[in-house]
């Protein structure tokens, strides 16, 4: 038997393309975040509300990933912002190449903020760098307070946690304090926001934070 030593990262190709994407974002002065959650937590609703709130302040665009349909891109495009849909046809996550290809459809020089809306999944997207400045993980109150403990890698890799659907708190058995404690036990540096895309609660704080991030990046 003869042995060939390789010692190469399996995702090195993805990481290389992610590095290229990141450089483009930095060169253009755009703040880019990778929005992750389980399906139905409210990623698209958060982006609709955000686009509506920031329409006079920031030039925003969305790259949305889904297994099928361009419904999400259609939804955010209604708010007058550029939206590109990536259909993964079964793929459970976005990767850096898919994002790089989608960037061809956007005028990056005309943007302040770009959101990479990942496929709804709290497992696989944790492993794939897309070139974003940070991951923002969205969790809804209907999912229970144990999600951070069950899917720790995602919460460990994220910089921000948005707890959505807080308008439903009177109707669900979600202990918000325990949720926060669980999330911070996995990642003490998480910045936490609480929002409702139905009532609009928390949107002021979230959008003010986005404005600060884009100002830093410009």
């Amino acid at each position, binding site marked *: *038997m003869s042995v*060939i030593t390789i010692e190469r*990262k399996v*995702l090195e190709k*993805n990481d290389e393309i992610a590095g290229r994407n990141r450089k483009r974002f930095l060169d253009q002065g755009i703040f880019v975040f990778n929005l992750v959650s389980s399906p139905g937590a409210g990623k698209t609703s958060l982006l609709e509300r955000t686009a509506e709130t920031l329409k006079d302040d920031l030039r925003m665009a969305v790259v949305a990933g889904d297994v099928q349909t361009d419904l999400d891109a259609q939804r955010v495009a209604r708010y007058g912002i550029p939206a590109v849909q990536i259909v993964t046809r079964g793929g*459970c996550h976005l990767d850096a190449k898919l994002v790089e290809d989608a960037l061809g459809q956007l005028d990056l020089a005309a943007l302040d903020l770009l959101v990479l809306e990942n496929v709804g999944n709290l497992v696989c997207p944790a492993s794939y760098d897309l070139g974003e400045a940070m991951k923002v993980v969205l969790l809804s109150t209907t999912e229970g307070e144990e999600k951070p403990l069950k899917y720790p890698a995602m919460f460990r890799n994220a910089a921000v946690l948005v707890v959505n659907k807080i308008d439903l708190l009177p109707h669900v058995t979600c202990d918000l304090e325990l949720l926060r404690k669980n999330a911070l036990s996995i990642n003490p540096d998480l910045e936490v926001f609480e929002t409702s895309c139905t009532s609009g609660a928390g949107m002021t704080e979230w959008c003010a934070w986005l404005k600060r991030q884009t100002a830093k990046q410009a």
Partner: protein
Amino acid sequence: MHELSIATGIVEIVEQHVAVERRPDVRTVTVAVGDYSGVVPEALTFSFEVVAADAGIEEARLEIRRVPVVLRCPGCGHEVEQEPPLPACPGCGGKRLEMVSGSELQVLEVELEDRAEETS
């Protein structure tokens, strides 16, 4: 279930290191898989068999070396083999622990059977 794309990545790397005529001789592909890498070893083994057959290395077996999660306290340097959450550093009580290993996903080596004419 992204193990299929991970398996494809592994096989692509093997292809870059092993010439076409030697691929049927590949017997073992050894990979390091961190316990925090998000990869399920059983699903990866299954996916690898499918992808390897298509790439002409169907005799290859995937050997997975698990890498445990090690957390390190930047304050006092104490290391502990445990997955988060860990409430505090057992050494100094520090709250922020860095992960020094456990997220690995790496192709380490391939083992090829020597051909008769080459060994004689």
